[in-house]
């Protein structure tokens, strides 16, 4: 049995995983990163538009600060997020971006003087201040009050990931590539690493560690059409679920991005609309102002995706062989702007659509994009139920996004969570030892070996590619943007059948080394379980919140549903997961539930909401001299490592 020991094992080599590994190494903790692919190829690289951080250097960011970013994030989440975590996040984001600047990200910078931009379909001249010249620039994004999304053209994720991986290389952090974690090793409620398969040789290796961090990204590939990379299959979530101890949070919270190209589902960044792009229907009519007169194309993602779908249902979509779509129009931004700030978008249009977006309309449609759900963690990033298991980034339900993530907050989360969780991982490694018997390691190793052997020796059975396609179709048809009981019940039942069928997979290519069919056979049963968590969670949540939109329950129902879904799968032979709920405590909210300002507000309010509002009013009245930091400390004290507690400086404002 091959066993590799380390202190801090990180599964996933994207932005979040690398940042946790860097934090471990900085603290002198031995660390190894496992990755399916070379780290620089991780899906983090596909983030185009940018990273939110309230630096407030550009003129349209003037007046921005942590409080404004916090309010945007909480509203964006439809009050489904953990406000302590959201607060820790917004306070740390400016530090994260400045650290990345020092580590080499070539953020686009403010240029003093006049520049022309497009706002609400019209050309406007903005004048940047001389004293902001050379500081980090920001662009507009959906659901934000200020221009807060910092960027490098539309390759922000790429430059961030390159800087992060280069930092990891500088520090000598080993990344074991082409390795897949199959199962977590745990004993008495404590996690000690993972059983890992080498994707080239097929060898199984036990990686034994004090702390294990899962940073494997989202589960977009549960859907047939998604903007996500082909490795975003949720396997990190699934191996946590399969412990029967760790919980997954809010798995039904799945985001659809308004503008992926048709038919292939590749993303065109929200920056297209942030920079002034418009959405048009089959008559080339700009329809968003009719639905959302205030924010128009720059309403929150979930809102825009729903409005687009509604509009297409009215027969206003552009018919095509791949079904209806709408148009994204960035022609008005002009060639110079597109070739400088939207060049990835331009390349994608040229290669995949054969059009030049400077002159032609881009066919787009809302498409699966982001997983708000994931491994439930507390504010330190650790699973509340399985000690020693941490999660960060999209794989986690750390829960700063609730039921809808704002554009620009995902890469921001990866880095900020990596910083914060990384410190707690290092603390944990310092305070704990590996107390696990070889027998236990062997037990997990044997179990995984047995599963693979069974797959290799079964003569007849199901085709894993076929099962996956059926699952992806169910999720597309019945667990999409608009949901209802009938569709969801159907999905839940059909997925149960798939789950049973997935127990009888047989291979045509029966070798244990490098074998794509075996990889599929190992992953597909896990993916089906996750799909069941999403569909079942969506069926039981009888309200609409953020991206979870029920046609039969259109109201946001704070009274009964201001709670987080927790999913476990304790009995491996059961054909459904177990769901419980954890309440969000209104009396601890810095920003009590209110209206997001979209459409009609038909919220069923929580009885504590008015009480908390009065309490906050009284507290402000009783502390007339308190500044915003003191007020926040009274309303929403947060858990955060000491090194991130300092105030953030802004140009023209100092540390106020």
């Amino acid at each position, binding site marked *: 049995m091959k066993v590799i020991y380390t202190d801090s094992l990180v599964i996933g080599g994207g932005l979040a995983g690398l940042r946790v590994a860097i934090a471990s190494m900085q603290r002198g903790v031995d660390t190894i990163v496992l990755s399916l692919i070379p780290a620089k190829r991780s899906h983090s690289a596909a983030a185009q538009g940018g990273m939110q951080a309230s630096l407030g250097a550009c003129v349209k960011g003037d007046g921005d600060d942590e409080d404004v970013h916090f309010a945007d994030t909480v509203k964006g989440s439809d009050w489904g997020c953990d406000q302590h975590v959201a607060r820790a996040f917004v306070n740390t984001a400016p530090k994260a971006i400045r650290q990345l600047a020092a580590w080499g990200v*070539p953020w686009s*910078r403010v240029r003093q003087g006049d520049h022309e931009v497009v706002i609400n379909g019209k050309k406007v001249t903005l004048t940047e201040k001389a004293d902001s010249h050379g500081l980090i620039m920001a662009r507009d994004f959906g659901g934000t009050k200020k221009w807060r999304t910092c960027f490098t053209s539309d390759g922000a994720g*790429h430059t961030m990931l390159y800087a992060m991986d280069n930092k990891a*290389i500088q520090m000598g952090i080993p990344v074991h590539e082409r390795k897949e974690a199959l199962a977590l090793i745990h004993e008495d409620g404590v996690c000690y690493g993972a059983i890992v398969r080498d994707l080239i040789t097929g060898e199984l290796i036990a990686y034994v560690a004090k702390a294990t961090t899962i940073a494997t990204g989202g589960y977009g590939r549960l859907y047939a059409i998604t903007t996500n990379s082909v490795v975003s299959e949720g396997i990190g979530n699934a191996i946590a679920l399969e412990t029967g101890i760790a919980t997954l949070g809010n798995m039904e919270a799945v985001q659809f991005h308004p503008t992926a190209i048709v038919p292939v589902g590749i993303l065109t960044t929200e920056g297209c609309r942030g920079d002034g792009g418009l959405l048009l229907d089959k008559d080339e009519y700009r329809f968003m102002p009719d639905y959302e007169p205030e924010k128009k194309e720059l309403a929150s993602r979930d809102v825009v995706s729903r409005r687009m779908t509604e509009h297409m249902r009215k027969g206003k979509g552009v018919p095509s062989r791949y079904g209806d779509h709408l148009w994204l129009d960035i022609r008005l931004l002009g060639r110079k702007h597109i070739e400088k700030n939207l060049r990835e978008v331009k390349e994608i249009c040229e290669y995949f659509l054969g059009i030049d977006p400077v002159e032609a309309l881009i066919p787009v449609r809302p498409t699966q994009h982001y997983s708000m759900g994931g491994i439930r963690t507390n504010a330190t990033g650790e699973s509340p139920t399985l000690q020693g298991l941490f999660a960060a980034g999209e794989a986690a339900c750390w829960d700063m996004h609730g039921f809808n993530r704002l554009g620009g907050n995902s890469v921001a989360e990866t880095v900020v969570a990596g910083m914060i969780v990384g410190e707690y991982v290092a603390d944990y490694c310092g305070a704990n030892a590996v107390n696990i018997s070889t027998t236990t390691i062997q037990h997990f190793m044997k179990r995984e070996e047995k599963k693979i052997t069974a797959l290799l020796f079964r003569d007849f059975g199901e085709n894993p590619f076929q099962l996956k396609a059926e699952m992806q179709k169910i999720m597309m048809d019945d667990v999409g943007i608009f949901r209802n009981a009938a569709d969801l019940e159907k999905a839940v039942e059909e997925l149960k059948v798939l789950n049973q069928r997935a127990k009888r997979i047989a291979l045509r290519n029966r070798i244990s080394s490098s074998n794509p069919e075996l990889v*599929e056979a190992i992953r597909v049963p896990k993916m089906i379980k996750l799909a069941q968590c999403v569909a079942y969670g969506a069926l039981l949540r009888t309200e609409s919140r953020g991206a979870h939109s029920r046609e039969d329950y259109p109201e946001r129902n704070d009274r009964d549903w201001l709670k987080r879904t927790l999913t476990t799968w304790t009995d491996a032979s059961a054909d459904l997961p177990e769901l419980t709920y954890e309440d969000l405590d209104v009396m601890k909210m810095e920003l009590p539930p209110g209206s997001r300002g979209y459409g009609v507000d038909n919220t069923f309010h929580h009885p504590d909401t008015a009480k908390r509002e009065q309490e906050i009013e009284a507290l402000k009245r009783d502390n007339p001299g308190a500044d915003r930091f003191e007020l926040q400390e009274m309303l929403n004290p947060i858990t955060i490592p000491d090194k991130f507690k300092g105030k953030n*400086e802004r140009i023209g404002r100092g540390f106020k």
Partner: protein
Amino acid sequence: MNDQGRILKFQVFRYNPQKKGDKPRMVTYEVTEAPGMTVFIALNDIREHQDPSFQFDFVCRAGICGSCAMIINGQPTLACRTLTSTYENGEIKLLPLPGFELIGDLSVNTGKFMRAMSERVESWIHDADADEVDFHRLEERMDPDVADQIYELERCVECGCCVSACATKRMRPDFLSAVGFVRLARYALDPRDKRSDEEFYEIIGDDDGVFGCMTLLGCEDYCPKDLPHQTQIAYLRRKMALVR
């Protein structure tokens, strides 16, 4: 594009070094073309419906991550964004990218090569203060044009097309190649990196570095991101020639 769907003929290199007795060979697969079909879609179709042992690498499938470079009808390029309709006679020949360790079929180990490249050129900001930066304070200012110029060179996706298209690399196994030059040029341009020209010379001032380049410029011709390799190699060469 034909709605009926013509039959594409894929001639593909197959060899699994992990499998005892396996021999390199070319295998032909037929696929019915669909509208907008890319090589990514076609290869997955072959794997799912004809041969589940078929190895190749894709991640983003959007031309962003650099995983899927291979030789398509004699030219190195990104398979994910290559439309099958590009090839009028419907015949597509696929070979793994040369210059890299073969994993199997069309899959090569670019990751190992690129990590070694990054270590060799020390692909990070050299500044003792970078780790001590007080991130509560305003970031260091940068000229907006310089930031844009750095991004221009930072757009490399480490796909390896330049390496496979490089004649010098064929003759000199340790030749750094354009991917390494452009990375180094990116840091040489960056005011945050405090390395001197003498220090850069230590890395590329020999025949396995910038002086070995025969200037055939396959890198410039085949870079999927249209990076200015020619200019950068010339720039580095002049800069290095001035050092001694």
